[in-house]
């Protein structure tokens, strides 16, 4: 043991700083015992009694700081002393703490008193209470959380309606308010088309298609999928319609949803009747006769809905849209014929692997008409349920965003790993005729999708070339060039790898179906 002592002459430290320094020194490696004290008589006698006194520190006076150390054998005193110097320097009080982070709505309202929106993504069992608190403080609510009990949703929405506030959600993944994309949303042009949507990816698709067509969005209000069910009664869907009807910056209204409950649909139609603005509606899976006699122009795909809204926005005739889609269909058939010709006899089936739930639904609808027997983990329309979601059979259209694929993992729009594995498995399968994918850009999604998907596509090529097969990969990219990922960059890179990138999910689905059905013939 080696006892050493140093005097820091005339250096005043308050007692707390000394305690702090002493703590640091006592924790240093090689220091067996230590003391940091002012050199008062009492302190020096304390040092002596604990065996820390050395002749060096004997002369210390009351205004001197004394550091006494007992070092383990073999420890370099000089090194320890230099470290102690550093400790003294580091204990100068700084003002570099963290800024205050409130722990409640009340606290947040103190920091930002004129806040008007609460974005809530806490666990579902608490989210309802947090949302209620927010409404009570006069905030509109975007409720990203899922697993909120339906009774709570109804309570929240009724309360909000009384107070003239929105409750978007629960399970509302996307919205664009006053030009601000919220949660999973894209950076789109502002414009005169207002949207109410009970479908997250549906909303993303239509906003992007509208923006990419040169038009823009005034407001895009999400309601959460359950809003149009009988129990909730479309409270926020209807409130959203009314708000857009009253909004001076909205000239066209677009409604996006799966088919609502009958009474809710009736309510929507009746509210629409009182609105003077053109209204387009896409209710995926509904009969084409659904809106007969109403003033809502029905579209059968998200793309058609977006383009019809664009036509209204530009004050063009709807026939422009019909003509354009017809022309595009001709091109699809041509491409499909070419691709089908390259397939080998074993390749029969479509394998669609989606990250967007609404895209999965839309693809099923578009495939059922042509292919008949379609399987899915989330069957929609006439589809059948897969026996095992991890094994494709026949024509398979999968939603990889469903809970059974995401346990303990981020959503497939963020984490591509589960889908990437599945892509490779389908590529290995000689029965696979087409792989159909979606890539969703925007805030909330993976910021570098190319790094995730390109290596897999290269691997698919390696596999299929080795087995002397041609496997078309068809993909839609939901996004805009203003998104942080930049849609053009993503499309170009995918194109360079031979992926057939289509402008919408409807177009991609049509192409995929056409290839497979042509192969059949």
């Amino acid at each position, binding site marked *: 043991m080696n006892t050493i002592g140093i005097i820091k002459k005339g250096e005043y430290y*308050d007692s*707390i*700083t000394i*305690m*702090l320094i*002493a*703590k640091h020194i006592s924790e240093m490696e090689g220091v067996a015992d*230590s*003391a*940091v004290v002012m050199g008062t008589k009492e302190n020096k006698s*304390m040092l002596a009694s604990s065996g820390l006194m050395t002749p060096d520190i004997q002369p210390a006076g009351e205004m001197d700081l004394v550091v006494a150390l007992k070092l383990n054998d073999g420890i370099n005193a000089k090194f320890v002393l230099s470290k102690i110097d550093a400790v003294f320097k580091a*204990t100068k*009080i*700084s*003002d570099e*703490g*963290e*800024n*205050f*982070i*409130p*722990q*409640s*709505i*009340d*606290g*947040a*309202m*103190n*920091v*930002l008193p*004129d*806040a*008007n*929106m*609460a*974005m809530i*993504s*806490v*666990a579902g069992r608490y989210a309802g209470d*947090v949302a209620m608190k*927010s409404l009570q403080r006069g*905030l*509109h609510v975007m409720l*990203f959380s899922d697993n909120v009990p339906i009774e709570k949703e109804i309570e929240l929405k009724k309360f909000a309606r009384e*107070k*003239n*506030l*929105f409750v978007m959600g629960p399970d509302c993944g996307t919205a664009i*308010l*006053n030009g*601000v*994309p*919220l*949660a999973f949303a894209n950076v789109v042009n502002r414009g005169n088309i207002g949207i109410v949507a009970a479908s997250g990816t549906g909303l993303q698709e239509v906003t992007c298609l509208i923006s990419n067509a040169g038009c823009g969005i*005034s407001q895009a209000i999400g309601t959460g999928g359950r809003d149009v069910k009988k129990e909730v009664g479309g409270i926020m869907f209807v409130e959203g319609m009314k*708000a857009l009807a*009253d909004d001076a910056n909205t000239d066209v209204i677009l409604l996006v949803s799966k088919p609502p409950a009958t009474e809710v649909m009736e309510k929507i139609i009746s509210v629409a009747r009182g609105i003077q603005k053109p209204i387009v509606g896409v209710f995926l899976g509904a009969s084409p006769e659904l809106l007969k006699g109403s003033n809502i122009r029905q579209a059968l795909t998200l793309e058609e809905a977006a383009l019809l809204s664009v036509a209204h926005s530009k004050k063009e005739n709807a026939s422009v849209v019909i003509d354009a889609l017809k022309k595009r269909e001709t091109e699809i058939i041509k491409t499909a014929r070419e691709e089908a010709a390259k397939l080998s006899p074993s390749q029969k089936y479509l394998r669609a692997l989606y990250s967007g739930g609404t895209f999965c639904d839309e693809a099923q609808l578009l495939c059922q008409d042509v292919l008949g027997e379609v399987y899915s983990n989330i069957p929609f329309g006439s589809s059948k349920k897969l026996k095992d979601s991890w094994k494709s059979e026949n024509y398979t259209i999968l939603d990889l965003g469903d809970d059974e694929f995401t346990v303990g993992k981020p959503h497939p729009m963020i984490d591509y790993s589960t889908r990437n594995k599945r892509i490779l498995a389908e590529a290995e399968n000689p029965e696979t005729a087409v792989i159909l994918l979606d890539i969703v850009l925007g*805030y*909330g999604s993976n910021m570098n999708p190319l790094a995730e998907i390109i290596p897999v596509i290269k691997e698919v090529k390696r596999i299929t070339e080795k087995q002397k097969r041609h496997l078309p990969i068809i993909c839609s990219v939901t996004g805009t060039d203003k998104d942080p990922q930049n849609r053009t960059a993503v499309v170009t890179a995918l194109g360079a790898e031979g992926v057939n990138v289509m402008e919408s999910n409807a177009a991609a689905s049509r192409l995929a179906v056409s290839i497979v059905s042509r192969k059949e013939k």
Partner: protein
Amino acid sequence: MNNLFQTELKVVNIGLKSFKETLDKQNVKSVHVDWRPPLFTDEKAMSIIKSNTGKIDAANKQALQKILNSKPFIVGMGKALDVVPSMKKNLLLHAGPPVTWEKMCGPMRGAVIGALIYEGIAGTPEKAEQVAASGQIEFSPCHEHSAVGPMAGIVSPSMPVFILQNEEYGDKAYCTMNEGLGKVLRYGAFSSDVIERLKWMEKILYPSLKRAVEKIGKIDLKNIIAQALQMGDEVHNRNRAATSLLYRTLAPAVLQTSDDKEIAASVLEFINRNDHFFLNLSMGASKISLDAARNIEYSSIVVVMARNGTEFGVQLSGTGDQWFTGPSPIPDALFFTGFTKEDANPDIGDSSITETAGLGGFAIASSPAIVQFVGGSTKDAINYTLKMYEITAAENNIYKIPYLNFRGTPTGIDVIKVVEKNILPFIDTGVAHKNAGVGQIGAGVLSAPAEPFVKALIGLANKIKSNKE
């Protein structure tokens, strides 16, 4: 819809932090909430509380009015036996909720031993332990006798006490004189020098101060505390400014009423050398203000937080004299040379009455000199005070924090907010050695334990329910 479309979007983000980062990238004004689940979610209790929100709010408003209107003054001094309610010769008052000799922690036992020696009831520590265990000595919380005591908080019959009066409501409160730092009775030390100091305080200090206080008439404690907060005290772990202000008030009167210069000088020097002399008075002032808010039906305001070194106890305005308790935690602390957390006793003392009144840890933004206790930066200290606004019902009208643009200190802990927001009161504290007889080994901070607050909320719900039936 409420003009939302015409207003700039300003977002409160609760949950995923990445959403806030996205908003930042788009230059949207937003604030992130570090949300956590409530301390408990007993549907029954919470629904009783929720369905009585109006009454609870009104009761709390009344409670806060009483706390804020209170005017604590020193009005005199006396012997505990003569002035403290229900004091008697075989009674020792102690800090915190009720505790038996068997359950007392080391420093509390040490202080009891010291007090029995001081009172002449026992001649030796061994004898004192026998007496304490024999059942002939009664123990009772200070708080049940209008008194407060720091650390072990022992008040014995012969001890002199300050008499405080609430000039607004007339109530009285009592506290002992502070002995100083280091090896002292309140930290559980009982060696002969500790007893001698107590005797000196009784025979020399007390008569001198009693005469001085009589000469002055009354001393405005609220005024001293308000000034001290602007001079770097939070009047719990730092009382240097308040002690100085009190000293300035007392000194002329001590001299004027003393026949003996040496004695007068020794009295003034004792106060001068003890930065914590004011602590007991800031506690007394807090106690008397909070007592004014007791027994207001439906009120969820905390009127007592106190620790006996074994348990942490809470009392609410709306639940009468009922204690809600849970195990007392060990503080995070800076330790004197030679001591570590291993040596520390669980938190002890009535001094958390200062936090209950919106001082101490709640006012730590006022006290940059002691920020080393809370992480070393002044911002940390400010954040602790800001956080306490989340769980309090009001901002103090007199006690102001210079750095926060003279915002009033967070005052009146609302147990409902504590439980719902899962934010526990933040307390400055001294640390006693866990063994009897050693004394103080450090100082630091801690968050109050959750259990007493959860129990208190359930207690309030039950009380409201039974009132209605």
